[in-house]
């Protein structure tokens, strides 16, 4: 008697399962960087511009963002407003200008906003390699002791602003 409805039960179970997975796909790409939790390298970079200092170590005693950028890099233009928004919330941002020239950087900052407290120059991409970055732009959240707490590969997305600001707030 019951056996006759067994195929139906199995079938409905399969459909319910598929429906559940379809409604709640947990396969969203959640690729966390392996650099999170690792100490940032002890970088010392010459100042890029005359008006502000360069980088003297990333363990500065307070949490801050480290942003790899270049005036030659289009995605950097795309993320510039988001960095400005972060700076407006009080997040200190360390800029690392990769393979760049002072005049070009000055023009870039005039056109697209200037969120950087300090800007170090990385003429040979040495800082890029030391940080384990794959390219420009990339953004790291570094805590007071110089440990990487968050890592964004590629340009920031609008959602990253709140996330990074909250993470920074929590580290203070």
């Amino acid at each position, binding site marked *: 008697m019951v056996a006759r*409805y067994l*195929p139906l039960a199995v*079938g*409905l179970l*399969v*459909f319910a399962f598929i*429906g559940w997975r379809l409604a709640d796909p*947990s396969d969203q790409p959640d690729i966390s960087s392996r650099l999170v939790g690792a100490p940032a390298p002890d970088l010392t970079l010459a100042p890029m511009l005359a008006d502000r200092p360069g980088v003297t170590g990333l363990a500065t005693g307070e949490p801050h963002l480290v942003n790899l950028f270049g005036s030659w890099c289009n995605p950097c233009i795309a993320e510039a407003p988001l960095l400005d928004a972060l700076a407006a919330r009080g997040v200190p941002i360390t800029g690392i200008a990769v393979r760049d020239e002072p005049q070009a950087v000055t023009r870039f900052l005039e056109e697209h906003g200037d969120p950087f407290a300090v800007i170090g120059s990385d003429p040979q991409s040495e800082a890029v390699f030391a940080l384990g970055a794959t390219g420009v732009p990339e953004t790291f959240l570094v805590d007071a002791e110089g440990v990487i707490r968050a890592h964004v590969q590629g340009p920031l997305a609008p959602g990253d602003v709140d996330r990074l600001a909250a993470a920074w707030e929590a580290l203070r």
Partner: protein
Amino acid sequence: MIAELGHAALWLAAALAGLQVVFALLRGQAGAAALPAIRAIAGAQALLALLAFAALLHLFWVTDLSVALVATHSHGDKLPFYKLAAAWGNHEGSMLLWVLLLSGFGALMARFARALEPAVMRGALGMQGALALGFYAFLLLSSNPFARLDPPALEGRGLNPLLQDPGLVFHPPTLYVGYVGLSVAFSLAIGAMLGGRVDAALARAMRPWVLLSWTFLTAGILGGSYWAYYELGWGGYWFWDPVENASLLPWLAATALLHSVSVLAAREALRAWTMALALIGFAMSMLGTFLVRSGLLTSVHAFAVDPERGTFILVLMALYVGGALALFGARIAQVREGAPFAPASREGALVANNLLLSVILALVLFGTFYPLVAEAFGASISVGPPYFNLVAGPLALLLVALLFVGPLLSWKRQFRPLSKGAALAGCGALAMLVATIALGWSMSLLERLGLALGAGLVIASLVPLLTRKPWRAPAPVWGMVLAHLGVGLLTVGIASESAFTKERLAIVQPGDQASVGPWLVEFRAAVPVAGPNWTAIEADLLASRGAGAARLAPQQRLFNQPATSTSESALLTRWDGQLYATVGQGSAAEGWQLRLWWKPFVTFIWAGGLLIALGGLVSLVGRIVRALREARPARASARYREQRSW
């Protein structure tokens, strides 16, 4: 205009499908009178679907870039041949093909499947209309192939170069005929359960459709496998990819159904089981489509990564399959017990065949979905060849062993002592087993047994022809022999490919030689060549084995629209295997990557697969010819009766 015409035809076809369902639901006097109308509607609906598909083909042929689908999936520079193929090389177009086949099979069923009770036929055609209606709705509401693009695109966005291959022109339609053909068995089973007539007449009506779709499924899977083999350049022919599994699942169900339907036709046994298989077969077809379309199990094939459409199809399937299984539960108790039989009989062997196939089906289904289950509980896991080979391999070999005796048993009960033929086959298998051990070939147990049992089956499969005069044997017997012979060759081929394949990877400069297996391959030059929409570096290879030499020309091909490179393998086919060559990146300074495989008896895989499909074809044609021959006198006498009634 043409796009709007196609779109309108699709809406009209959907309306007719709805009408078909309504007419099928009529009861009593009106219901009895409705059958001719239903038949006519089924035909008209198929013609409209054909019109819509023809409109889409036309749009692709002239590359009408004001149609979104054409703009995203074709390109003005594409060869005419591939422009047409692009019509079904995408989600919307392939679903239109699906629904065209669904309505086409409905029309064919209305026209040709006649020897059934009107109530059964009405239910079956109503179900076929309901199936079509659901898929029309899916097309019209969530994936309209005729949507316009305003403003029109300046140039199309091309097509995946991997898909610019003759294989694409034939592979999806072949497979789809197989998938959708199973809908007829599904609808007939529904009709029979609604009409309360599950009998031999139903099985005989169902059999040609099952044979047809099974033959096409076999050919489609074989074609897809060969396409992956030469086009992907990985040297493999089966990867247990979810989408491959999606085509294998209905094939397994159809194979089981094909055998159980014979039992029902000949002995009126296995009624409930056959009905269940008919439902499961098409359910697996839809599940396959769903897996591919929803992107739930991501793979190269999931070109519509779109959960919304997935939900639509899921609801459709849940309604159809859930409804069908509920009907099965409610009605199957009224079906009489089938005729009894002894375990050691033809029926017994076919039951064993069915059980093994069903278990393989369940295991493959489980493996295909397991990553999804694991993921639901937070684990990330992929299930690959090791699992499938381990669980499906031994069961498949058991099936092969069963084939030694199954076809030689007679119906009902008589247990004849094993015939000389079966004994001969057993000796053949044993000899092969001993040979592989004596020659010291190192291979896994599964491969060793595969070689032995496959070789034995090659002999055993021919026995049914030898016990009588071969030319007197009916076509279905020939069909069975060919298909089983194919299974034997396939088994040998798979085992041999797995056990004996030799691989060689070398960096070569012009003039260098590389050896693989018995072959010596000379790399003579790397030549730039250009095609209609690609450029390539072509390796000029000279392969020799003892006397004589043959040229091979694998390419590293760069398509310009979109810019993608593909590896075009080169194959040298000999009766005892294939030499497979691909050329990779390289330069004149650093040399060229050359990859060579020697695959002994991989040819048996292709020949075996072809024989299996050919067996289905022979059996199908034989049955159709016989049905026509039987129908002619019957029709004549009917005409005579008609005249008398005047």
